[in-house]
């Protein structure tokens, strides 16, 4: 059914999409994650990638990062083919715990994004310091610039992650569940920061998440993955009882309440009709991280 789902091409004022997937197919062994995915993400567009555990969200991310190849089809960034470590992509991961004795201050974590990939030691520091200060200011992290990362809160760390990801001026900001394990206030602040980046600086955002509500006001379109099928559209088009029921192949109730969307009756995990826990031929980390 997936190829028949209409995928609306993005409104694209600049001409070239930031990300372009053509007839993209991804599968492992005889397991199909998605097929016939045609998707253009315009500069400044905010795309949320939603789906149940094991629906292929993490694999989608790995493909964009160039760490896993497509089974068939093509993927380009700003017209260039995808590869690992592409400068056009900024990557914001899940919040991770830093040991308290990690020898990095907030500004050094951001600095890794500026020149951490270069060989040798840093000889001229002026341009580097200037760029780091600029990035810290951009995400509102200046006041804790000199504090060790192991002593920062999750929300503060995620701001630094965004600054780090923005260092090479990427065309696409790829966020992998960046709100996970943050409290509600930090979730809002980090989402707003990512939203600003899309609207204010024209960076395309691909935001992989299992929970749309914290980012709902910023999202332009949703890519919803479920059990080898997918659908693309605005939140209003996708997040409906009819569309999600058809996607999951079972009745799913979508409720709207006080600006929040609640999906009721969603199967725990849909993997070609198998419940989660039968990962034949499936990369193990995909199941673990796909939540």
């Amino acid at each position, binding site marked *: 059914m997936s190829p028949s789902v209409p995928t609306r091409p993005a409104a694209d004022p600049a001409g070239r999409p930031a990300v372009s997937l053509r007839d993209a197919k991804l599968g492992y062994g005889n397991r199909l994650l998605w097929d016939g995915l045609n998707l253009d993400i315009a500069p400044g567009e905010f795309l949320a990638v939603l789906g149940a555990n094991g629906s292929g969200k993490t694999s989608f991310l790995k493909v964009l*990062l*160039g*760490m896993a190849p497509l089974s068939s089809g093509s993927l380009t960034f700003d017209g260039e083919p995808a*590869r*690992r*470590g*592409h400068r056009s992509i900024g*990557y914001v*991961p899940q919040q*991770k715990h*830093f040991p308290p*004795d*990690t*020898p*990095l*201050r907030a500004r*050094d*974590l951001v600095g*890794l994004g500026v*020149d*951490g*990939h*270069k*060989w*040798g*030691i*840093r000889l001229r520091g002026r341009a580097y310091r200037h760029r780091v200060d600029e990035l810290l200011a951009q995400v509102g992290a200046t*006041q*804790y610039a*000199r*504090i*060790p*990362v*192991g*002593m*920062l809160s999750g929300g503060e760390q995620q701001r630094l992650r965004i600054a*780090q990801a923005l260092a090479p001026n990427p065309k696409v900001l790829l966020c992998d569940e960046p709100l996970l394990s943050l409290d509600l206030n930090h979730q809002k602040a980090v989402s707003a920061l990512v939203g600003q980046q899309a609207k204010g600086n024209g960076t395309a955002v691909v935001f992989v998440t299992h929970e749309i509500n914290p980012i709902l006001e910023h999202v332009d379109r949703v890519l919803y993955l479920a059990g080898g099928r997918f659908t693309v559209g605005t939140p209003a088009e996708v997040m409906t009882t009819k569309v999600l029921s058809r996607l999951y192949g079972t009745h799913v109730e979508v409720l709207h309440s006080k600006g929040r969307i609640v999906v009721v009756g969603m199967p725990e995990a849909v993997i070609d009709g198998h419940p989660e826990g039968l990962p034949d031929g499936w990369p193990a980390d995909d199941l673990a991280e796909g939540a």
Partner: protein
Amino acid sequence: MSWADFTSAVFNFTDYAELLPLFRDSLLAGAILGLVGGLIGTFVMMRDLAFAVHGIAELSFAGASFALLVGADVIGGSLVGSVLAALLLGAMGVRAREKNSVIGVIMPFGLGLGILFLSLYQGRAANKFGLLTGQIVSVDSTQLSALAVTALVVIAGLVVIWRPLTFASVDPDIADARGIPVRTLSLAFMFLLGISVALSIQVVGALLVLALLITPAAAALQVTAAPRMVVALSVAFAVVSTVGGIMLALGGRIPISPYVTTLSFVIYVVCRLVGGWRRRRGWTARAASISAHA
């Protein structure tokens, strides 16, 4: 042993002024090893490899005692043993945790082999003991230049991979996503670490290598998180421990390693106290007070 016997064995500064110039080469060697240990130690801490260092040291000991037994160059044997062990651990995986059980298996095996070779060896007993507890006082000028050249290779190697290695050490997932060759860097680092362990064994011996490769960096991390400061302090602590240890040991009749290990331990304890005081006073303070910690 009376207290007077103890102090005269441990601290004896008679004819110190005449003694000191004779040990110029040893002091230089100690300074070079301190420099290497302090530099590489910061990465050992970042990569959580303290246990691996210990394992590499035991295999290095096995290599050295084998060389002693067959009449080959002891430093060469020590180098071969530790580089092989380090590369083996490096090839096994990027994460330190997965390695720990394997290190625990390899380490006693290496130590056992070393003891076997030493028991078979018929030469001077001082040579045997030196491998475990250090023997730098006997360094001659040929050894010193070989040591300096090897140390230079390690330092140059570290400088070349410094930034990507830092990235890959503190944040491997992101470094991988950014296209940094995380695995290759890990192997390159293990190679340099193997050489450093073999060098350090010449000063403090296989059993006490951690005092040079771990303690100074661990002490530095207690008091600062600024990367340059960590490196500077770690090197300073390691050099003070080795050079200071040798200078204290000159007059006494015991090996230098207890002096080196005690000095680095005292530095560590002081740094812990300073670090604790700093944290209580609000290391995480957001406003004006942070400008002092540049």
